């Protein structure tokens, strides 16, 4: 007869959530583990944020020094957008007192995945105070009727 103690559903769930949390932390560290700039491509990754409301997904990007007429926002698949924008001046590492890296940047660039289905073709864009705002209406693929 097995002497192994039977675990309760709460223990199993607790362990599951602990593992999930650990995986999320690892993923976060992996994402943070790379620099926010790409020396080879001469690009910087902007800070960005996503908010999902009942009707739309709103993505914002912090783009200091940006020339408004150079901003490009492109859908690259049904739930990812790519943004790029040129800065008014070249930024060198030594502008920040950093001398152990060499390189200069004049472009912001990044891809962002939208976490809910959206209509890419109904995208609205505005740029104010150095913040690029992309609004995407949410797609309702199905509605569950209330009985």
């Amino acid at each position, binding site marked *: 007869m097995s002497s192994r103690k039977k675990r309760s559903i709460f223990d199993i769930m607790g362990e599951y959530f602990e593992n999930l949390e650990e995986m999320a932390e690892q993923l*976060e560290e992996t994402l*943070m583990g790379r620099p*926010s700039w790409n020396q080879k491509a001469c690009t*910087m990754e*902007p*800070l960005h*944020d996503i908010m999902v409301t009942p009707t739309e997904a709103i993505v*914002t990007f*912090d783009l*200091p*020094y940006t020339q408004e007429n150079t901003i490009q926002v492109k859908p690259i698949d049904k739930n990812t957008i790519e943004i790029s924008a040129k800065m008014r001046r070249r*930024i060198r590492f030594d*502008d*920040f007192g950093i001398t152990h890296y060499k390189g200069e940047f004049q472009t912001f660039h990044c891809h962002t995945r939208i976490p809910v289905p959206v209509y890419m073709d109904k995208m609205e864009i505005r740029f*104010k*105070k*150095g*913040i690029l*705002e992309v609004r995407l209406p949410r797609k309702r693929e199905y509605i569950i009727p209330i009985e």
Partner: protein
Amino acid sequence: MVSRVFWGMNLSDEVKILEKKEVPLGAIMLYGFPDVGLVGVIAASHLISELDLREIAYMDSRLLPPMIVLHEGLPHSPIRIFGNHDILLAVSETAISADTIYPIMNALIDWGKGKNVRMMVSLSGIPIQDRQDAQELKVFAAASSPEMLKMVQDKGVEILNEGYMVGPQAIVLQSCARIGLPAITLLGQCFLNYPDPEAAAKVLKELANITGVKVDVSKLLEKGDEIRLRARDIMKRTQQEMSKMKKTREYDIPVYVS
């Protein structure tokens, strides 16, 4: 050269504050720690450069990440205290993790109390939606006692009446209320996740109004884009810690139970 060592009283053989220069007694102690919009850090950095504050003490602790900050090739603690004859300014160049925030902040408060500081002021932010559309940014205050609350109200600062506060400034206010040390927190409306020099400038103006610690904020506004660019990485790290600290609780509506 390190002249004196102060050991944090609360936890904490784990947190030491080492003094490099003579520390004035009876000063105002300010805090600029990474939080929403990096308002406190940006404001602190501007105060250091405008008032030519010198490093007078630093924190040494195994609770901090295993890191140093190199400035002109020399190692520095990520948490340092700058000052002159009348101001002590604690500033952190790294986001403080939720699980170490109590011993770290309490060690600083105990140290300040030991220096007979006359008031503690946390410089920070409060996020608003559609911040880029805001015409005029407001600054709110919270205080450690009814007397301090009246003092800031008399200066025309709006009070943060109800709500939650999460982060270093919450510990400062709570601990100072407990030990009877006058304290206020100034919260400038700001971006949640982006560095906000304009909000920092607003907070510095209210700091001048309340304490008389005056600085010209025009350079801060002129260099806004440069600061936003420079502060991206620390903002990203701070976002992570804010999420672990459940910073979004500040949006919650409290149930009044007293």
